[in-house]
């Protein structure tokens, strides 16, 4: 009897949230598929398929050279499970780009429906872009945005239609020379969203992009670029998920954001890859004078995640706030940490990092605050909170501050909370199961971050937490 209970527990540990939503991988027809060793001709073929201008083709090839040359980053451990010579690096699904859901092939539409996106779009979003494997399969924005001159386009279409605009920013915020896999991203990027908000335009409804990986052994290199003109306001939500796959897939995506004078960009990510995705995110923003960039990252899924939302506070009086929540429940690794570089005077940053480790999960925090000389009166506040739910799980915090400006003030606070036997007994003595007790504690731990999210996303995250800690793995 005890053995069966134990066995059931073991099996349940392997429950995958994304799998519960999206099921297992199903075949989706592809029009083009490029796989194998990463070569120059592979990169050129992708560029050809996308009918790119020459500057983009050259940017790809330059990036490829860098990929070959740059050393393997020390912080990227675990990525070895991928066989980089065997992956599918470009997969174009057999689907014309749709602007209504029924135009999509059924296999693809089903995924989005299971995620509740059509309904969310109708109720809540100013625009939605859906990327499946390597290409955008769905894009629609509300009319009023076009009228105001807002551009929301699949990245490759933006490259063709607005080359001069895109060129000013593309991989200039996050250069391919940064590390080996930023370079690989530059060489192979495909899919993603371009958003441009003209000066003075404020969009109160968020725009969402949703990324799906639909196959095993795939590499997804989606690239999104958000530019807010002077005094503009935009909120971008990024979601990602995948069905359960039979082999590891690799996500090496990039988000670049540029906030011009007094603009505000808010980026919210809900990452729920299935647990066979190795997830590397390259995220960086630049804030000009008086501008503000906010990041909220909820990192739930994937086998391994590396995510470090970064902001360069270039202009005086610019500010950023980055709230990152990571959950590692089971044999998974979340390596996260916000990074801020203070360049301008009176720049302000706030970093909040919350990690939850359970069932042997490991969280690592690797944030960086740099204040360069001349960034007078810069202030940075860093709060790292780790919640560890059992003895098997771990949380490590490696904060790094580099302050070269004597008038700057940098504060760092780190706390680690462990769920104790007394607490667990206390809550179960109130009629809660262990899992309910844990989910109550986790939701309480996340409360302040959840409160910042739009209601729809707070609800999704709450459900996800309850599901992660529910014994039967079914929606309540």
């Amino acid at each position, binding site marked *: 009897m005890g053995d069966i209970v134990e066995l059931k527990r073991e099996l349940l540990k392997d429950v995958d949230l994304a799998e519960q939503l999206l099921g297992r991988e199903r075949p989706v027809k592809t029009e083009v598929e490029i796989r194998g060793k990463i070569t120059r001709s592979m990169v050129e073929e992708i560029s050809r398929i996308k009918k790119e201008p020459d500057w983009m083709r050259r940017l790809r090839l330059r990036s490829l050279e860098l990929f070959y040359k740059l050393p393997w980053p020390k912080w990227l451990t675990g990525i070895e499970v991928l066989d980089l010579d065997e992956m599918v690096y470009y997969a174009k699904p057999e689907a014309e780009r749709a602007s209504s859901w029924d135009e999509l092939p059924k296999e693809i539409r089903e995924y989005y429906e299971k995620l509740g996106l059509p309904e969310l779009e109708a109720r809540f979003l100013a625009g939605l872009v859906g990327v499946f494997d390597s290409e955008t399969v769905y894009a629609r924005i509300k009319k009023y945005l076009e009228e105001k001159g807002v551009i929301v386009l699949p990245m490759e279409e933006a490259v063709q239609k607005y080359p001069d605009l895109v060129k000013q920013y593309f991989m200039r915020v996050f250069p391919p020379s940064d590390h080996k896999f930023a370079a690989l991203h530059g060489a192979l990027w495909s899919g993603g969203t371009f958003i441009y908000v003209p000066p003075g335009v404020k969009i109160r409804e968020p725009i969402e992009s949703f990324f799906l990986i639909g196959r095993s052994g795939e590499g997804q290199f989606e690239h999104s670029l958000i530019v807010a003109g002077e005094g503009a306001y935009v909120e971008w939500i990024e979601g990602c998920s995948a069905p359960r796959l039979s082999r590891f897939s690799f996500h090496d995506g990039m988000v670049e954001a540029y906030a011009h004078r007094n603009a505000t960009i808010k980026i919210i990510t809900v990452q729920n890859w299935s647990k066979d995705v190795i997830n590397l995110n390259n995220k960086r923003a630049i804030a000009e004078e008086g501008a503000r960039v906010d990041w909220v990252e909820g990192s739930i899924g994937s086998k391994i995640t590396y995510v470090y939302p970064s902001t360069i506070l270039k202009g005086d009086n610019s500010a950023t706030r980055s709230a990152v929540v990571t959950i590692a429940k089971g044999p998974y690794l979340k390596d996260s940490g916000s990074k801020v570089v203070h360049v301008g005077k009176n720049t302000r940053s706030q970093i909040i990092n919350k990690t939850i480790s359970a069932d042997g999960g490991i969280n690592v925090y690797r944030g960086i605050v740099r204040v360069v000389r001349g960034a007078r009166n810069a202030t940075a506040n860093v709060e790292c909170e780790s919640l560890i739910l059992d003895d098997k799980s771990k949380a490590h915090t490696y904060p790094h501050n580099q302050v070269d400006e004597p008038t700057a003030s940098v504060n760092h606070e780190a706390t680690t909370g462990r769920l104790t036997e007394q*607490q667990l*007994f206390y*809550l179960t003595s109130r009629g809660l199961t262990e899992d309910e007790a844990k989910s*109550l504690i986790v*939701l*309480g*731990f996340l409360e302040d971050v959840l409160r910042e999210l739009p209601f729809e996303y707070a609800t999704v995250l709450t459900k996800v937490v309850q599901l992660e800690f529910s014994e039967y793995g079914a929606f309540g």
Partner: protein
Amino acid sequence: MGLEVVNLTAKVGDKIVLRNVSLKVDYGAVHVIMGPNGSGKSSLAYVIMGRPIYEVLEGDILLDGESIKDLPTEERALKGIFLAQQDPPQVPGVRLSSLIITFTNKKLGAKDLTRPKDPSVIKRMYEVATKLGLPREILQREVNVGFSGGEKKRSEILQAMLFDAKIVIFDEPDSGLDIDGLRIVADYIKSLRDAGKGVMLITHYARLLNYVKPDKVTVLLDGKVAATGGPELAQLVEEKGYAYLRAKIAKGGGSTGV
């Protein structure tokens, strides 16, 4: 009927904390447990509640004649046993109001534990808090985090009231409580008895017993039942102390009746 502990022997770590303990908590009655520090009173409460670090070596625990010995803690709670702890732990991040909403939902069999299934619970918890002399804000604070000693005790009583169990175990509800608090606890215990609930009351002091006349008194020494009796036993302990009782037992040999 009621709660019955039968020949219970239990250990925690390597330490045997209860040895062959038997006692009954009847409905409509108050059973007082006394004993010196470390004699096993809290252990008895924990074992009844099924705290996993305690292991039952022998004996049984019955609720209304049915064994609950192998049930997990939450099921014992849901069957109607509530433990107001001697020193409840802090639960950072969890607001007292969330905890109350969650357990009242659980008791009502709600699927979503986060939003109150019975919205009147919100109003009630504030009313009860006020009645107990707790500031309203305490419901929005994290459970026991920074609560004063007396606030902790009152918060346990608050939860007991909202949990509405049929057997309520109070582990030293009176220690560290001011005189008003003492009256409130006493009144609550009396109201439970009047409502036909069973009360197990662990206390060191006869002071509380001046307000609530116990129906039964049991004294534990070294994890064993050393004496049982009525209110007069509590009085005896108060006047003469445990050394006297110990000596008397050593002479007389018997472990029940004084």
